[in-house]
């Protein structure tokens, strides 16, 4: 390119500033969304991984339904793949502050694994000291130095008879003396002093105050605290709750990389047999011990009877001896059933990949992955369209100039070189700015958005020049390609044709002109029809532009309304309850609550709410809620198990929320793998999948099936109340002092809050789509209309010279625009509905299901906003007709 030609291109940047800005902006948007999200995803992964490393977050957690002891810890340590192994206790109790009861998860502090980071204060050194999670401390208003009273949650007692197993090694007399303490507090002390505020790697909660649920009661956990391992009352447990382990082989791998997931599974598979064998040996020893115990029971009871006879049954010693004898018989009876049932003693090995915090982060990263492709595709498509029409307009407006250049001897290539250079430089500037935006805007914003509530210790940012180059090449190819396509037709024309400035007017009779409708049409209609048929490219481009605007708006509002509508649908047609009372039903402690509800005629259903892990075919482990139902009738009055095919009138078998079925294409009668709280995995046959819109998995099973499959007895722990039956405040006040009352959950408000939070994310999407629609309108449609009006300038001027009023002349433009808008709108609405439904799938996971289909409100918005935007752009362009100088006709 010659020097002067280059100078001319430089001048064009000023003259064609809007085109320049359009190209730059869209390249920046596309780069920012794709590279930014890619880097952010990696940066979040690395940042959280760093955070996990600082907290020595466990790689594995080994648990057993029958308790763990130090020999088990030593065994795990002895395995080659495990570098560290440490036991821990976990229990669930309550704490009250300012008349609010909080469900706590209380854990023993790790020394080398899961070590918290201290934000304030110091490590607890005594049995009555604790440290408290930062987010919970902030939410509940706890600070270092505060004293808290732990309220024992009796419903969280460990399976008593199994607890005895560990005592088989001990003096039974001593054990029997302590029997009364066994079902008592989990902790040695009930009053604790807060010595520190900490951050834990185990609960990076994405949704601020959610720490999961109490697996026994299904009650949501409000906070997490740590105490010294010695603060736990070991007699209340059958053993350690779990063993935390770390592996050498995983040290160097970023845990959100696929390699980590693969390696964690490899190590698990490799050691599974050894661990299972270890526990099987232990099981056999227990069985042997139980058998010995059973064998000696008759002898022991006879001996106790003799002693009672000696001391007298009513004496203090006699009473104690009677209790001892009853305990012996009770245990014996239980062991008898254990031996008859031929139970298998199993253990579970969960990798970090099963941790809910890990899964939440991984889900976000996966969502970013999906989002980056859809956003990038959107920006690239819209950007290429914008570039195409902006360049088309420029080329069109320079028709005579291009003709002059051709006439003066410049070749088509040389002319395209200057147009191409313009697009090239604009794109390159966009790429540079886009890279800066991706690295210094998108990445920090997204990484810190997750960091906001929790606060990583340090953030790791990412930058890869290779991804910039690859993306830059794609963008350049598209933009230069669009420039070529936009200028090709004009550059092909002869210099003379360009210089006369006229458009291609070789109009001939077409087939449609022979139709009766055409013949009967007015001249105005004929002219508009002819314009449309003659200038198909413009007509098609305008339709595509309007289609783009309408589809963006319809799809964005559809998405938004699907979310909001899903909650409404859930509330109106699925869950007819709004409150959940957590209760302790042991020893009929809940009688008072039920009497109260019956007296007040409040419709309710008592269920057992628990927690299972759903294992998906692609190795995801999703925490899910399980309702065990005893009274089918009362439950179905408050919970509608229904899908398109049928409505269930009796709970008999397993029922699952439909999201799994949608995600993995499983039909009624298909199987799902569920892992219970003891780590046992069950393949269950789902009788029916039902519509369920809350963003979590819900399983429902009848009592008999549950007890048979899970080998657990039915123990109701929750009561659901009919919507609007009673106010939450009244209920809190009335139930507060009832025996068996634990806590209350405002199910409706919490579900709504969760939906609103999710919907607010979509508000951003709606905003973004509307911005894109406006850009489409003001660049694509505006350029097309400008070109159309310029092309028709002479014709319109002639009409006005010959006596057409301006408004009459304008009809030639706006009737054309109205027709194209109608066609574009119809197609755009159809595409928008499809896009809305397809986009919804991008946000769907194994635990989310939302209403889909045709959303008429979104269509109405799409119609109105598209009409409004087209109207504004048309108005702007029609105003140009007012400025036509009729006298210029002869120039």
């Amino acid at each position, binding site marked *: 390119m010659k020097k002067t030609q280059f100078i001319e291109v430089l001048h064009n940047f000023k003259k064609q500033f809007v085109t320049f800005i359009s190209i730059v902006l869209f390249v920046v948007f596309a780069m920012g969304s794709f590279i930014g999200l890619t880097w952010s995803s990696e940066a979040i992964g690395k940042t959280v991984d760093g955070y996990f490393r600082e907290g020595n977050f466990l790689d594995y957690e080994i648990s057993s339904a029958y308790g763990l002891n130090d020999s088990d810890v030593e065994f795990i340590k002895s395995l080659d793949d495990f570098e560290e192994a440490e036991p821990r206790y976990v229990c669930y109790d309550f704490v009250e502050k300012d008349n609010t009861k909080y469900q706590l998860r209380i854990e023993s502090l790790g020394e080398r694994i899961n070590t918290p980071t201290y934000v304030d204060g110091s490590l607890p050194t005594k049995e009555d000291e604790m440290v408290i999670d930062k987010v919970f401390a902030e939410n509940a208003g706890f600070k270092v130095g505060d004293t808290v009273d732990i309220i024992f949650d009796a419903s969280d007692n460990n399976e008593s008879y199994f607890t005895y197993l560990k005592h088989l090694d001990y003096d039974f007399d001593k054990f029997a003396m302590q029997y009364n303490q066994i079902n008592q507090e989990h902790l040695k002390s009930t009053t604790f002093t807060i010595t520190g505020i900490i951050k834990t790697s185990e609960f990076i909660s994405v949704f601020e105050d959610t720490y999961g649920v109490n697996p026994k009661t299904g009650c949501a956990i409000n906070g997490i605290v740590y105490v010294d391992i010695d603060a736990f009352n070991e007699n209340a447990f059958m053993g350690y709750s779990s063993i935390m382990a770390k592996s050498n082989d995983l040290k160097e791998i970023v845990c959100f990389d696929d390699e980590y997931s693969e390696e964690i599974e490899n190590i698990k598979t490799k050691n599974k047999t050894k661990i299972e064998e270890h526990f099987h040996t232990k099981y056999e020893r227990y069985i042997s011990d139980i058998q010995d115990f059973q064998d000696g029971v008759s002898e022991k009871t006879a001996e106790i009877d003799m002693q009672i006879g000696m001391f007298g049954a009513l004496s203090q010693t006699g009473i104690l001896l009677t209790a001892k004898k009853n305990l012996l018989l009770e245990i014996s009876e239980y062991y008898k059933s254990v031996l008859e049932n031929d139970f298998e003693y199993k253990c579970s090995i969960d990798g970090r990949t099963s941790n809910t915090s890990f899964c939440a982060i991984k889900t976000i990263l996966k969502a970013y992955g999906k989002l980056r492709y859809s956003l990038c595709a959107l920006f690239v498509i819209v950007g290429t369209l914008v570039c195409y029409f902006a360049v088309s307009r420029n080329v069109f407006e320079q028709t005579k100039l291009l003709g002059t250049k051709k006439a003066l001897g410049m070749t088509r290539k040389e002319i395209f070189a200057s147009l191409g250079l313009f697009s090239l430089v604009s794109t390159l500037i966009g790429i540079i700015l886009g890279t800066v935006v991706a690295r210094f805007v998108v990445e920090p914003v997204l990484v810190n958005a997750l960091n906001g509530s929790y606060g990583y210790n340090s953030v790791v940012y990412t930058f890869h020049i290779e991804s910039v180059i690859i993306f830059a090449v794609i963008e350049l190819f598209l933009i230069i390609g669009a420039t070529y396509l936009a200028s090709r037709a004009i550059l092909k024309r002869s210099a003379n044709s360009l210089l006369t400035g006229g458009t291609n007017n070789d109009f*001939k009779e077409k087939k449609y002109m022979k139709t009766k409708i055409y013949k009967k049409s007015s001249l105005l209609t004929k002219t508009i029809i002819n314009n449309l048929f003659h200038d198909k490219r413009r007509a098609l481009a305008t339709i595509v532009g309007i289609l783009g605007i309408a589809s963006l708006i319809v799809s964005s509002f559809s998405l938004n309304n699907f979310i909001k509508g899903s909650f409404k649908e859930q509330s109106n047609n699925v869950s007819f309850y709004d409150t959940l009372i957590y209760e302790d039903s042991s020893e009929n402690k809940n009688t008072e609550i039920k009497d109260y509800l019956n007296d007040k005629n409040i419709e309710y259903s008592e269920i057992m709410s628990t927690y299972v892990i759903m294992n998906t075919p692609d190795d995801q482990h999703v925490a899910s809620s399980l309702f065990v139902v005893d009274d089918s009738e009362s439950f179905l009055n408050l919970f509608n198990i229904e899908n398109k095919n049928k409505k269930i009138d009796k709970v008999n078998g397993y029922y699952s929320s439909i999201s799994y079925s949608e995600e993995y294409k499983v039909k009624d009668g298909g199987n799902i793998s569920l892992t219970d709280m003891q780590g046992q995995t069950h393949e269950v046959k789902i009788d029916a999948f039902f519509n369920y819109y809350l963003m979590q998995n819900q399983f429902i099973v009848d009592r008999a099936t549950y007890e048979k499959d899970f080998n657990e007895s039915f123990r109701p722990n929750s009561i659901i109340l009919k919507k609007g039956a009673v106010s939450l405040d009244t209920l809190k006040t009335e139930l507060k002092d009832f025996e068996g009352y634990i806590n209350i959950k405002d199910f409706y408000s919490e579900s709504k809050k969760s939906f609103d939070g999710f919907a607010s994310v979509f508000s951003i999407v709606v905003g973004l789509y509307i911005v894109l629609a406006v850009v489409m309108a003001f660049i694509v449609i505006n350029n097309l209309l400008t070109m159309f009006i310029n092309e028709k300038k*002479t*014709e319109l001027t002639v*009409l*006005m010279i*010959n*006596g057409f*009023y*301006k408004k009459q002349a304008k009809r030639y433009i706006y009737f054309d625009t109205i027709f194209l808008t109608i066609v574009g709108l119809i197609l755009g609405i159809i595409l928008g509905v499809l896009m809305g439904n397809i986009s919804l799938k991008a946000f769907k996971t194994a635990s989310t299901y939302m209403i889909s289909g045709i959303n008429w409100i979104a269509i109405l918005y799409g119609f109105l906003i598209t009409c409004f935007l087209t109207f504004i752009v048309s108005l702007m362009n029609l105003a140009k007709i007012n400025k036509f100088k009729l006298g210029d006709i*002869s120039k």
Partner: protein
Amino acid sequence: MEQSDIKYYKMLGEIQVSIKQSKTFYDAIKNGLKIVTMNSASDYAVVWYKVNNSYKPYYWLMPYDLTSASISCDNNAINDCIKNNKVITYADFIKDADEELKNSFGSLNIASLVIAPFNFTKNEQGFIFYIKKEGKFSSDEVDSFQILTLLTEISIHDSNLTLNDWTKNKVILSCKDIKKSFKNGDVITNVLKGINFNIYEGEFLCFLGESGCGKSTLLNIIGGLEKLDSGSFEFYGKDYSKASDDELTKYRRDNIGFIFQSYNLMPNLTSKQNLDLIGELVDNPLDSMETLKIVGLEDKANNYPSQLSGGQQQRVSIARALIKNPKIIMADEPTAALDYDTSIEVLTTMEKVVSKGTSLVMVTHNEEITKMADRVIRFRNGKVYEITVNSNPLKAKDLVW
């Protein structure tokens, strides 16, 4: 012999030669007077002749349309001049001249005037005004006017040319002191610097002048396409100089037909539809097929513009201008883009249109075409340089270039 004498005799010779070479009486007068004006102290000159009971301008060299001016046969000064065959001089025109004489020049500034008797034929008497814008004529100058007038008269009589009068009709459009300027950045260009003329019913008027002299701008103004800065133009007595856009549209719609150099037909409509589109605007349009017949294109009624030759397109364009049955057709260089034969074809069509009583105003660069016109207004530097009347307009087929 002094240099001034040589110049004087040379001028006398030029007058004789130019009159001898003139083909028409009008040309003889025009050419003779031009030489006199160019070589004398006179700024303007007007030749008057008697029509019925008054004197009318026959030819004039001044920036003012005197077509409608007249002086009664009873005017004392004129009677004195003609009856006594004597030169009348007004050294101070404003002070000495009578009101009738003063009014005959409208707003034109005149400092002094010489009236010299001029006999068109033995029986047709007239006179010539020699006008000075500023200052007074000297006695020598007055004498020279008398001699030159006499010489012109003798030369014309010797050439045997006969007077053939153009019969003008009613004035339908009248322009008074029209001024128009354009601003381009900081530069203001005065395109029209005070234009005065009339358009008569049924006349073929040509605007002639070099590029940039303002003729197209003037056509746009009287066509209602552009607004003037000052002055006025009246159509049938109604002043449109301050008309609104809608009023101008109505004016164009009802009264004016346009023909453009580049035809500007609607490309998506057939010939007939192009006519119907405009015809539908007025209450009593001509029949589109009949109109196409006038321009000789009835067999091309269903052809699209792209299927017609340039000449045919321009004829459709003429038909389009004609279909509204307008009072005036304005044509801006309608043949500029056409070859000779096609131009003649188009001009013949225009000739036909004028013969049916429609006034035609045509802007042209082609001096030959002006020979078809009844009158020609020549512009120079934004002013009317001269207005000439063709007493013997040629037929289109007779034009040669």
